[in-house]
């Protein structure tokens, strides 16, 4: 498992949002007033101001009844136009998929993973396509056949049209997803072979903060790099003072299982610098530490279970190495703030044990698989909402095909190319920006050799930095779709964390809702609803 869920911090995100939205609004105002003055002369000020006042008036005279009517219209339209044929495609996919992806020869965790990924992928892809097409074509069709003329000549505000459309398409998204997700759930439970069903579960981990001690016992930020290009794990040396120290917050009696044991699940890697003892794996040891009471309680020696991971059932009462003193895990070893400190050391001299933050966690009692599955479906649902919001907004100023393309690009960039965009925008991508990499291509230069100095290089780099800034702006504006993908959690047998996945997804949707609705409202308001 390679993901490292980090709790989402709400307030910094809100601050960034306020900055971005504030700057955009200011820009929009400048452009709006400028445009109005350019086209109406001095009177333009009044016109632009009037539009803003009208916007607020429409906002405060919103009618739920009208929004509901428009949402219902949208909903009926999709259903009567047979948009729900998607279910047929879905059913066919599921009927045949079983033949290809069920392979009882694999280990349980992998079987579960394959099935879960298939179901969530199918769910999100099919519903995404349907919802995106519907949302992007609704308003343009309405304008093309001019049925919108009968709506806007009623007291329906353009804001209500936008909101009604968004609500209606969201309703469709909900129905489509709910039906497909239910089928998917039943299918999963029937299709995953019985002997692997135990992996259809939701671990609820408590992750800690990790820190290291180097071989001399001094604090260090990381352990040793054994030459992996992937720097995710770092290593501690066996039989030295090197330690990996986890600090688990919020540990209490409720973190124990029904038999009052603490489940510590680990996925350590071993790196051998010599053969060592061949008939067993590397040995390691936990030590429970309570700095407040200056207690150090060593736990028994254990063997590393590479690639599979192991779950150690630590009893609440620990009697170290056959001593007489007995310690209570919760009362003695957890400090007054509810933190439990666990130090890991490797025992075999000259061997190394690799670990990263999520490689050791307290496994509190599992939740049923359905709980995690539901949350990941909520994740897909939130993504669909965002797609609806983006699609409807796009369709207020461009026609159906263009709106679809635009929304599709935003989804793809937000999902697939975000990492690349990040690197290029920060200038950390090897080989430089656009022009530098083109130069390198032509000059057959590999990405790590420095470009020769000179005026041309200076110019090239300056232009690239300008482009980087532009990309940075894009990065700030385009939504991050990665949060919505919660499948990796449940595919690996984990519950979906609220703070690292569900919360940011909700926040992303909210963050785009407000500016998109403003854009959509004004673009419907400021244009003639005439098919051109």
């Amino acid at each position, binding site marked *: 498992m390679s993901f490292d869920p980090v709790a989402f911090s709400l307030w910094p995100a809100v601050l960034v949002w306020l900055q971005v939205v504030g700057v955009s609004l200011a820009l929009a105002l400048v452009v709006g007033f400028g445009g109005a003055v350019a086209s109406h002369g001095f009177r333009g000020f009044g016109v632009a101001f009037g539009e803003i006042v009208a916007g607020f008036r429409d906002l405060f005279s919103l009618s739920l*009844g009208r929004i509901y009517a428009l949402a219902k*219209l949208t909903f009926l339209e999709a259903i009567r136009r047979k948009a729900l044929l998607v279910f047929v495609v879905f059913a066919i996919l599921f009927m045949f998929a079983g033949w290809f992806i069920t392979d009882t020869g694999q280990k349980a965790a992998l079987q579960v993973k394959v099935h879960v990924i298939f179901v969530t992928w199918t769910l999100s892809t099919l519903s995404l396509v349907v919802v995106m097409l519907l949302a992007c074509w609704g308003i343009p069709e309405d304008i093309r056949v001019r*049925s919108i003329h009968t709506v*806007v*000549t*009623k*007291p*329906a*505000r353009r804001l209500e049209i936008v909101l009604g459309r968004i609500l209606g398409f969201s309703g469709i998204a909900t129905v489509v997803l709910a039906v497909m997700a239910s089928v998917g759930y039943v299918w999963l439970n029937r299709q995953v072979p019985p002997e692997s069903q135990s992996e259809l579960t939701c671990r609820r981990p408590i992750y800690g903060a990790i820190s290291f001690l180097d071989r001399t016992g001094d604090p260090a930020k990381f352990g040793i790099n054994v030459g992996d290009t992937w720097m995710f794990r770092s290593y501690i040396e066996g039989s030295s003072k090197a330690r990996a120290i986890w600090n688990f917050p919020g540990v209490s009696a409720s973190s124990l299982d029904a038999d009052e044991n603490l489940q510590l699940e680990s996925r350590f890697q071993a790196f051998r610098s010599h053969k060592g003892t061949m008939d067993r794996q590397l040995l390691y040891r936990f030590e429970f530490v309570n700095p407040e009471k200056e207690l150090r309680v060593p736990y028994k020696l254990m063997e590393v279970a590479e690639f599979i991971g192991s779950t150690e059932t630590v009893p609440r009462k620990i009697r170290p190495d056959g001593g007489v003193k007995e310690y209570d895990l919760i009362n003695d070893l957890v400090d007054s703030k509810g933190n439990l400190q666990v130090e890991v050391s490797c025992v075999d001299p000259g061997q190394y044990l690799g670990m990263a933050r999520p490689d050791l966690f307290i496994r509190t009692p599992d939740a049923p698989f359905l709980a995690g599955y539901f949350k990941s479906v909520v994740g897909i649902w939130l993504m669909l909402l965002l797609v609806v919001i983006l699609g409807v907004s796009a369709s207020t100023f461009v026609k159906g095909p263009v709106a679809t393309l635009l929304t599709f690009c935003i989804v793809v960039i937000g999902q697939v190319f975000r990492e690349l965009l990040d690197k290029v925008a920060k200038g950390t991508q090897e080989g430089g920006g656009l022009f530098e990499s083109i130069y390198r291509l032509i000059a057959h230069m590999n990405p790590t050799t420095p470009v020769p100095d000179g005026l041309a290089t200076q110019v090239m780099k300056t232009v690239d930095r300008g482009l980087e800034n532009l990309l940075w702006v894009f990065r700030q504006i385009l939504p991050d779709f990665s949060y919505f993908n919660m499948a990796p959690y449940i595919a690996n047998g984990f519950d979906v964390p609220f703070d690292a996945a569900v919360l940011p997804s909700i926040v992303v949707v909210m963050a785009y809702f407000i500016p998109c609705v403003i854009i959509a409202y004004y673009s419907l308001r400021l244009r003639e609803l005439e098919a051109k």
Partner: protein
Amino acid sequence: MSAETSEPVIQVNNLSKVYRDFWGRKKVRAVNSLTLDVKKGEVFGLLGPNGSGKTTTIKMLLGLLFPTEGEIKILGQNASDVRKNERIGYLPEESYLYRFLNADETLDFYGRLFNLPAKVRKQRTDELLSLVKVEHARRRQLKEYSKGMTRRIGLAQALINDPDLILLDEPTSGLDPLGNRDMKDLILKLKGMGKTILMCSHLLADVQDVCDRIAILYGGELKVLGRVDELLKQKGATQITAPTLTPEAIAEVEAVLKKHGVNQVQVDNPRSDLEDLFLRTVQESREHPGRRIAP
């Protein structure tokens, strides 16, 4: 109360509309410096050949199109102000309705846009469906409707809010003779209820029957504006209408007129006068572009 003295419901001042293409290039000047007003309680007819800017004018009144120049006050508000719509009913040129809804759902939907309570919506739907005579098809989707039936639903839709001002763009197009008759009766009935009606139509006989005042547009310009009865009363001429006379009788009448110094007497069968006016207006406008004909 005579129409002239009452307050204007629609005031249009120097209104122009230029259609532009995507790049902002000028395509057509559909309405040119139009000034007119429609008074409370009158039936106003907007006439003109195809493409003379009638629909464009109506759309500007409703805020569907933005004027290139000029001002509009409608029910005392700006054309772009959505609040005016509370008291307006609009029948578009073609029935731009939602074809996947049935008649009941259609009227219910438009009723909701006025925030009418469910009971009122139900009651109005029943009333209007029987008024426009499509009750028998109320549960069928509009895509199965014939042209005239759709037109009737369009009219019902325009009346759902019991509007004070009704804009009808070719209300009789697609209607059968009976429907045509009903439409005329309905317009007169609505007028009797004190509503103001602005309509455009190509059926001049009907316009002559129902309209108090008319305007004739040609090429986006106002050519004729006035009360129907006055416009048809030719200046410098007196019309005597009698059942068909025998040649002897005509000769006698001519002799009497001669005695009073009238030498030019025109004798023929009567024809629709508005048709005459209309054709004359179009003809003259074609010959003398830019000239206002009456008044």
